[in-house]
């Protein structure tokens, strides 16, 4: 086919990468819609977490079956993609199996046989994953938030893997020159007989088709990520890196509130002097979060990273006892709303035009927010260091501080604290009475 196919290849490759770059740009823009938060501390510890948790998948294997299978697919997929390097060089320069001309046959054979074995392992793991999702009724894949697109998404990725792995093996099996080497075809030599008796031309056609479909498939996959929970294969790394390092129980103190409180507590402060200053700053700061732009950017990165695995929800005491709250849904809602806001900005030449919707109520209801016990089970369970609790707390803050919309009992509790220094209506002067009670 010569030069024409090289050009065609280059066009497809650059289009694929170009679209991907555009997606990455939107992704960055959307994450930056969140509030600023400085997370530049403790670099060595963050790096260590990234290596252990994201690369080493230390939290995945806490559930041995799915954890092990996931490692197989992950390692297989990454290593087999080394093969893509060869495909790209061959495609651009019209060579065939460039690896053979730069590496000794034995080394090349070793590499390809490793890829072939991994391809089979990936296929096996993917089939088990499919059965877990579709045949065995595993509770965490059945929740209400997992119907429709999220369920389809989970399966589409599995089909992708099957197709890509099969194409790779077929490509090797129908490559007569490669089979003749008798090195590297540990698996494909058993597939080759399926094609025996075919004309050499037909075989070549099948081999070429598999080759083209393989690389096109990978480019499509790359661009599918943006719309899928599979974004985690890229984002798990930065997400774990920027994950929370402070004790799980520690909630951040709001600095704006601190300023106000200090002013109120300072006997020397002139209450009138403060007013013009705050006015000069324009709009008073909004407390808590009612929409995605109010959340710190890390929460938005969290949302894009969420794999929808449901490990969080399957440990959530509220969810386990039938409440509406599901930490996974909190993450999925945040992402869906962020996507919606992103599209709005795209459609309106770079500025967000209010659409009468927000994360609160339109996606996440107060009923879900108030069901949380702040137990941190979800945070502990997440294999990629996502913190659903921080979003819940930000939104509760908005409900209470901006809308005074706490449940009545909590309002009573809070006015007790305000008046008596205890959540119950007892007098502070009685605080030590226990000492003398029998």
């Amino acid at each position, binding site marked *: 086919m010569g030069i024409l196919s090289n050009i065609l290849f280059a066009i497809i490759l650059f289009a694929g990468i170009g679209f991907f770059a555009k997606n990455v740009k939107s992704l960055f823009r959307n994450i930056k819609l969140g509030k600023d938060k400085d997370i530049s501390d403790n670099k060595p510890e963050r790096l260590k977490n990234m290596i252990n948790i994201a690369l080493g998948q230390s939290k995945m294997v806490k559930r041995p079956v799915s954890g092990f299978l996931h490692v197989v697919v992950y390692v297989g997929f990454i290593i087999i993609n080394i093969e893509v390097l060869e495909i790209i060089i061959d495609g651009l320069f019209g060579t065939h199996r460039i690896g053979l001309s730069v590496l000794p046959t034995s080394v090349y054979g070793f590499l390809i046989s490793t890829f072939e074995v991994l391809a089979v392992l990936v296929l096996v793991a993917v089939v088990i994953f499919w059965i877990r999702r579709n045949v065995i009724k595993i509770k965490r894949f059945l929740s209400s938030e997992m119907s429709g697109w999220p369920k389809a998404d989970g399966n589409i990725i599995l089909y992708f893997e099957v197709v890509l792995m099969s194409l790779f093996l077929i490509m090797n099996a129908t490559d007569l020159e490669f089979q003749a080497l008798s090195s590297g075809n540990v698996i494909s030599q058993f597939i080759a007989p399926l094609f025996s008796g075919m004309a050499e031309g037909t075989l070549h056609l099948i081999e070429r088709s598999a080759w083209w479909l393989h690389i096109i498939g990978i480019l499509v996959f790359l661009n599918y990520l943006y719309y899928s929970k599979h974004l985690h294969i890229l984002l798990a790394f930065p997400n774990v890196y920027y994950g929370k390092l402070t004790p799980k129980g520690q909630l951040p103190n709001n600095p704006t509130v601190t300023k106000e409180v200090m002013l109120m507590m300072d006997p020397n402060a002139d209450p009138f002097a403060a007013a013009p200053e705050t006015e000069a700053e324009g709009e008073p700061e909004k407390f808590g979060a009612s929409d995605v732009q109010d959340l710190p950017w890390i929460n938005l990165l969290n949302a894009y990273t969420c794999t929808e695995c449901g490990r969080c929800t399957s440990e959530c005491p509220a969810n386990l*006892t039938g409440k509406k709250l599901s930490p996974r849904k909190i993450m999925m809602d945040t992402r869906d709303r962020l996507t919606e806001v992103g599209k709005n900005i795209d459609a309106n030449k770079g500025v967000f035009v209010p659409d009468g919707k927000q994360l609160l109520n339109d996606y996440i209801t107060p009923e879900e927010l108030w069901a949380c016990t702040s137990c941190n089970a979800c945070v502990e369970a997440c294999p990629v260091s996502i913190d659903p609790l921080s979003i819940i707390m930000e939104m509760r803050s908005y409900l209470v501080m901006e809308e005074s919309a706490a449940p009545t009992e909590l309002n009573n509790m*809070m006015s007790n604290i305000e008046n008596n220094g*205890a959540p119950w209506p007892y007098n502070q002067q009685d605080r030590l009475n226990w000492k003398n009670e029998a």
Partner: protein
Amino acid sequence: MSEQLNVPTMAELMAEGKQPDILFWVGSAGSYDDRAKKITKAFVKLLNKANVNFAVLGTEESCTGDIAKRAGNEFLFQMQAVMNIEVLNAYDVKKIVTCDPHSFNCLKNEYPGLGGNYEVFHHTQFIKELLDSGQLEVTENTFKGKRITFHDPCYLGRANNEYDAPRDILKKTNATLVEMKRSRNTALCCGAGGAQMFKEPEPGAMDINMLRTEDALETKPDIIATGCPYCNTMMTDGIKFKEKENSIVVKDIAELIAEAKGL
């Protein structure tokens, strides 16, 4: 049992020109709640027995603000915190111990950012220290042959990574320690955290404390040990609901050790 408790206040010690080694933060539940007051008193008995030089704030103590913060009222939390910090710093407090993991978490992690820097202990950590240093001993066999299961408080365990201190103490009692299927970092919440203690639960299939009580019952325990006044209430209610209050007791670790010592 009616032996007089020795509970000096910071104000009293200050008047005598004395400074205690550690402040006992009693907390709102420990001060007012009838069940939690028993835990407070048991812990004081241990402190007295070990001759710990401690004091309480008494009427100068106020809610940490932790519950307000978890309920979304950052303003109320910070007001409480700043007021408490003012008192604590005026008394030059350096160390604090508390029986409430929520106060523990709040004092330890959230007060420093507002100017309150203290070394904070949960009472199980403190009791363990007393046992390890020999200031307190349990050789008694009160719990020999009894099955005890420990329910991890979220704010001690997951929130602050302390899983061992309570278990180390229980191991010294000659009891048989049995673990629930969900324990340590996968322990199920009792249902009281995040201000749930102060409101009705949202509609659902069951209450969280029932599910946790079922976890505990699976271990066929004689005693359910707790380390938090709120967990204690939740588990006590659960056991009552399951009509097991005649065969299973729910007790705080401080109460168990005080009992082992015949206090």
